[in-house]
């Protein structure tokens, strides 16, 4: 709770300092975000495709997200966009099946972020393994708006990890990959690797985890949040 | 066990047998695709055909007719037997080669005319319904007696059962059911006859018993004795001929050719795949039919004798020569409840006088005995076969068996005819002519309605004055004989016969017969519109309206031939077809392999 209040104050301060109106609005909302349960808290599930793991050298090449309202994934809100990368895609193309030429057809990182933060206003972020994606987003924001915004996050990997630990379930290598966890919840297998599909897959997993933790699915979120 | 219970058991058991056979046949019919089912043996098929052929008219009415009309009734025997032979020899083989199994279909195609087909359909439906009337009457008599209810209620029960039987359909047409029905029927017919023949003459074979002398030691032959008894009471001698020879001949002929073409029997000839087998089974059928037909005169004569002996217990004219009404046997009481047997004590002596009060000479003598007219005001002929075993005091199980036999005869024939009628209405008339694009569902519905309609009509006519029914019989057989038979024969044997000739001939035969019947029986049977009284003196050359069908047929032949000579001949392909029909086809095909 203390963490939550401190995070709020920081966001509030940043909002005032921010020159980018979209980001400023986002931060404002973030500062006063009313967080309750799955049913009354809007979420946004996001995934980024990157050229690599190193935020110093690698870049975001696509973003995908979907919104969760009242505990229901709004399939109509699905969004996917390619981002113009400054450097070549290189070897990761094998994974993403994105060629340089296609990446070049995308939009600039700035407009992409603008749309993303607009969508994320008033919402709690959902990631699978939030750390990596957040670090890239923070870096991108820094060069876009000159500041590092705050994030209130539900990390499906972390929640699942803590739950398994609490239940003393063995955790082996690879068990916490998105596909593996989904499998254990009986969720459909997605073959493709794509930012939107992964965002959607993460959203579905969030719903599944919520109903596992709380049989009626209306999970109180506060104890599962992570603040960046 | 009392008779009623026993009858229920026996009738129930036979029905269970038919249904059981039907189920067994259904269940075992789906085999592996490449294993073809076995054919039916000609003897078995002959039995099945005989069951189809023998109706309530054969089982119940014929012996009754013979019992009361004496020798004259043998025209029915001869007519119906002849009709069968005609069907088997002249008609079935050629229709088969033509590939048609109903008469209207043959006539429509042979004379390339829908009008001709329509006439044929209407004639056959009328004839068939008439035939069903006879079955309904028989069923009504049987049910009335054994349920101990009035005849009318018996008919209504029968109507219900016939409808269910015909709609379920499954029990009909399965050869083994038919065979079972034949067995029940022939057993029920001959067993009582054997007992009675043994009683009366000491000879167990009824056909021989009929010509033997009485077993009472008098040495008088059975027929002489019967003649004696009936003439004593003013009835015509049993063995006498009562009509002119020409009229009897023509009546026989009308019945014969009017019967040929009844749809339910024709179909039987086409269920045997091989022509040769069909011929053999037709022969066997004749044998099986003959067993019943030759027994009928014996049953008739003996029943009459027993009836007369029961009532006239002693000397004619003696005070104690007649049965006391209060001492009448049970069967007498039971038949009284059906309303088919009625007694009226006209002279109030408490005894039954049964004699011919129409005979002027005897009526005068009877007056002398103090008799005030015939007191048996109603003796329905159709009760004779059913009452026979009771009159002869045979065991109860024999009596129950006869009931089952009568029902088997009536049901098998009625169901066959009703299916033919419903198919003719729904398929030939409705789909063939009126609504060609009718859906199968509606066709099925129409067939059910037609069937119910036919049963209602036949039941109604069966309940109402038999005189009326008899007139319809005359009309139907007369029409079939005068219109259809000549068209069939010429279609098969005269390749030059054309559409115009056939239609002109059919119309001539139809109209002349209709007019002759209406002339004596009233236009459309409305009483009082007769042009002259229906008595032998007024008849043309002594020919009764019932016998005129044969004359109509002759007129039909004559007109058809004349008209066909002056109009265009039939198309080439039809002529070739007719030629082909009469040339044995298998001959050429059998050589090469």
């Amino acid at each position, binding site marked *: 709770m203390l963490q939550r209040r401190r995070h709020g104050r920081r966001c509030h301060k940043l909002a005032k300092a921010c020159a980018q109106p979209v980001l400023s609005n986002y931060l404002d909302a973030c500062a006063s975000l009313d967080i309750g349960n799955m049913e009354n808290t809007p979420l946004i599930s996001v995934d980024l495709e990157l050229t690599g793991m190193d935020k110093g050298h690698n870049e975001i090449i696509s973003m995908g997200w979907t919104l969760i309202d009242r505990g229901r994934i709004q399939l109509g809100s699905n969004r996917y966009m390619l981002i113009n990368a400054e450097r070549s895609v290189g070897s990761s193309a094998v994974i993403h099946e994105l060629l340089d030429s296609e990446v070049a057809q995308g939009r600039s990182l700035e407009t992409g972020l603008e749309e993303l933060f607009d969508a994320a206003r008033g919402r709690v972020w959902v990631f699978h393994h939030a750390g990596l994606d957040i670090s890239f987003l923070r870096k991108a924001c820094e060069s876009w708006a000159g500041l590092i915004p705050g994030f209130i996050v539900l990390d499906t990997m972390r929640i699942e990890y803590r739950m398994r630990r609490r239940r003393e379930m063995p955790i082996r290598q690879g068990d916490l990959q998105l596909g593996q966890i989904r499998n254990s919840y009986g969720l459909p297998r997605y073959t493709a690797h794509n930012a939107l599909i992964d965002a959607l897959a993460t959203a*579905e997993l969030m719903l599944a985890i919520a109903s596992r933790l709380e049989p009626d699915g209306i999970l109180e979120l506060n104890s599962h949040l992570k603040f960046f | 066990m009392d008779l009623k219970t026993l009858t229920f058991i026996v009738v129930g058991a036979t029905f269970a047998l038919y249904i059981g056979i039907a189920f067994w046949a259904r269940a075992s019919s789906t085999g592996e695709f490449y294993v073809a089912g076995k054919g039916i043996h000609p003897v078995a098929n002959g039995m099945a055909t005989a069951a189809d052929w023998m109706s309530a008219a054969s089982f119940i009415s014929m012996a009754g007719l013979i019992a009361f009309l004496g020798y004259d009734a043998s025209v029915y025997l001869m007519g119906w037997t002849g009709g069968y032979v005609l069907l088997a020899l002249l008609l079935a083989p050629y229709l088969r080669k033509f*590939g048609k199994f109903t008469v209207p279909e043959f006539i429509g195609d042979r004379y390339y005319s829908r009008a001709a087909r329509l006439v044929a359909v209407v004639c056959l439906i009328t004839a068939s319904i008439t035939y069903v009337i006879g079955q309904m009457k028989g069923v009504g008599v049987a049910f009335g007696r054994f349920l101990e209810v009035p005849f009318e209620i018996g008919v209504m029960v029968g109507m219900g059962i016939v409808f269910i039987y015909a709609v379920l359909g499954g029990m009909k047409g399965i050869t083994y059911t038919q065979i079972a029905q034949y067995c029940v029927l022939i057993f029920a017919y001959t067993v009582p006859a054997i007992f009675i023949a043994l009683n009366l003459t000491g000879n167990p074979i009824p056909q021989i018993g009929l010509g033997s002398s009485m077993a009472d030691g008098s040495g008088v032959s059975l027929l002489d004795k019967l003649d004696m008894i009936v003439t004593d009471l003013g009835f015509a001698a049993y063995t006498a001929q009562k009509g002119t020879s020409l009229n009897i001949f023509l009546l026989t002929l009308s019945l014969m050719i009017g019967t040929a073409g009844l749809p339910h029997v024709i179909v039987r000839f086409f269920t045997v*795949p091989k022509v040769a087998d069909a011929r053999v089974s037709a022969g066997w059928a004749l044998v099986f039919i003959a067993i019943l037909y030759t027994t009928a005169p014996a049953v008739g004569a003996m029943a009459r004798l027993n009836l007369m002996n029961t009532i006239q217990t002693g000397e004619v004219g003696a005070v104690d020569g007649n049965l006391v009404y209060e001492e009448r046997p049970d069967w007498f009481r039971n038949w009284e409840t059906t309303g088919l047997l009625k007694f009226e004590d006209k002279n109030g002596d408490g005894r039954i006088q049964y004699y011919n009060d129409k005979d002027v000479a005897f009526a005068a003598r009877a007056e002398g005995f103090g008799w005030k007219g015939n007191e048996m005001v109603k003796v329905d002929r159709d009760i004779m076969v059913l009452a026979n075993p009771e009159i002869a005091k045979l065991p109860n199980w024999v009596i129950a068996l006869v009931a089952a036999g009568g029902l088997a005869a009536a049901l098998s024939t009625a169901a066959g005819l009703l299916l033919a009628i419903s198919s003719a209405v729904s398929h030939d008339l409705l789909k063939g002519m009126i609504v060609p*694009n009718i859906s199968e569902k509606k066709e*099925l519905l129409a067939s059910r309605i037609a069937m119910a309609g036919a049963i209602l009509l036949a039941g109604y006519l069966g309940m109402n004055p038999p005189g009326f029914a008899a007139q319809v019989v005359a009309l139907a057989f007369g029409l079939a004989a005068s219109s259809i038979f000549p068209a069939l024969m010429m279609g098969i044997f005269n390749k030059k016969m054309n559409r115009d000739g056939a239609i002109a001939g059919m119309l001539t035969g139809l109209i002349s017969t209709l007019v002759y019947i209406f002339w004596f029986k009233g236009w459309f049977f409305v009483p009082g519109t007769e042009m002259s009284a229906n008595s032998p003196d007024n008849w043309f050359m002594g020919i009764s309206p019932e016998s005129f069908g044969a004359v109509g047929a002759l007129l039909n032949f004559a007109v058809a031939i004349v008209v066909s000579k002056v109009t265009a001949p039939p198309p080439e392909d039809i002529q070739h077809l007719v030629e082909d029909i009469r040339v044995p086809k298998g001959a050429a095909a059998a050589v090469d392999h």
Partner: protein
Amino acid sequence: MQDVSLASEFLHTVPPFNSLEWDELRTLASKLEAVYYPRGKSIFSSSSGAGLAVIRKGAVRLVDAESRFLDKRSEGGLFGHGIYFHGELKDYGAEAEEDCLIWHLAEAEFAKLRERNPLLSEYFSSHLKTRLSAAAQVQHSFTQMRDLQRRQPVTIDCNASIREAAKLMSDKNVSSVLVMRGPDLVGIVTDKDLRVRVLAADLESDTAIERVMTKEPTTLSADAGADAALLLMMRENYHHLPIVEGGKPLGLVTAGDILRSQSEHPLRLVRDIHKKKSVDELVVMSRRLPSLFERMVTLGRDVEQIGRMVTHITDAFTVRLLQFAEIEHGRPPMPYAWIAFGSQAREEQTARSDQDNGIILERKASDEEAEYFSKLAQFVCTGLDRLGYVYCPGEVMARNARWRVSLARWKRHFDNWIDEPDPKSVMHSSIFFDMRCVHGEAHLVEELLEYATTRARENRIFRRFMAANVLHHRPPLGFFRRFVQEDDGSHSEGLNLKHRGIVPITDLVRMRALEAGITEPNTFRRIELAVKAGMMNENDASSLRDALILINRIRLGYQAEQMSAGQDPGNFVPADELSPLMRRNLKAAFMLVVEAQNALALRYQVH
């Protein structure tokens, strides 16, 4: 991949949405909400106002107010809308039988969707019969001709000269040109036409092209499916066909274009068969058939086309074997026709088929000639057996001398059956009236069929025997319309869908075909022709067609399942392996067959 395409792609595999246009699918997808329900959780307790739900993953139980089981739905299944249970529309609840991912469409959106799409509306407002019909009709929207990469058509006006046409063709490097009058397509001219009708006929090159073109060429409608187009091209041996929409040509397609649009099309096999050089190679190839069949079924191709495609492959094998035989034993000494009977003739083969075939010779063979055909038949029949088309248990095969005779003798076979229809003859006729030329002189087959059909049409007594035989195969319904299961010969019980479902229908339709004098063997086309001939009422026709499709779909689906489980495909389907909905549909289909059989019984007075 963009936005909602993930959802719309899935919907595209789900009936009835698979018949929707992509635009509509995308609109629909954008209105969906995904919800996760763990096992046992109630999804809703009353279907009123529940909108529509699509099962993306998992399985759902539908229950009544007292929680009694009504039906089960699984992945791709729909619920939430009005459903008839036992012919009665009732309110119901839904609960997750497994962990489920459900896509919800709100009631208001569902109403709008139905309003926009009358076809969907009909699907959802189903009554027994309409549902049967809808169930029989969905599942066939595959690639349409409109969606294909087309070649630009090269066109020329009908008044142009032959020379101009030839020049245009060589300039554009095409082998055919479409002839137009104004905006309308009136003909086509190919290289071959120029050779045969111009050069060989010594025609002046300034003659109008109109005179040598093929008038009213065969075309493909823009909404024709890929399967139908391919089958037409293969049957008629066309290399390419114009695609037409409203009389105007959109372009040309070749069989290759269509095949390329389908990742692995079954009919590719047909081409490959003709490239093989030995029986052994064919045998290797034939091993692909089971998996191919399984895929055709699971992809939900319609059963009529599955039958055609499987038969096409059989035909191709047969023709190839005949070619090998002619190479091995030399040229045939006289013209002949190789004929297929039964399901191959009807183009209704499925997973496992026996071979039924024969040979018509042009005339009576000498001993030497008879010897040749005996060897030929032996070669082909043995070959087919090796390819998995096992010998016919009734020996209806060309290797049986009885079915390898002259046209005249064949006619006498039919004469004998028709004149003296004993049970064996009737059984034979039901096989032999379904006859089709696979290879050789088609006119021999046509003449025989014409003869036999005419004789059967004229002889109602013979048809009556056939009718009685037809009624031997009754649908498996007992008292109170309960299913009657039979022992399948090994251990378990099931509904004999072939003998008591498919066979009765093909038999009934064959009767209609004989009544109308139709020589076509395929059941669906027979129905069509019988309606055209006024021999069948449209409603009766569509009932039988729907029943056939439905029963066959269940049967094929079950066979595919058995094959994927590594078992031999059979025709016995245990009733308890069918969903309640399927059982009801199946029952409805059987009832239609019973009705048609009753009508047949009435028509021929057999019972």
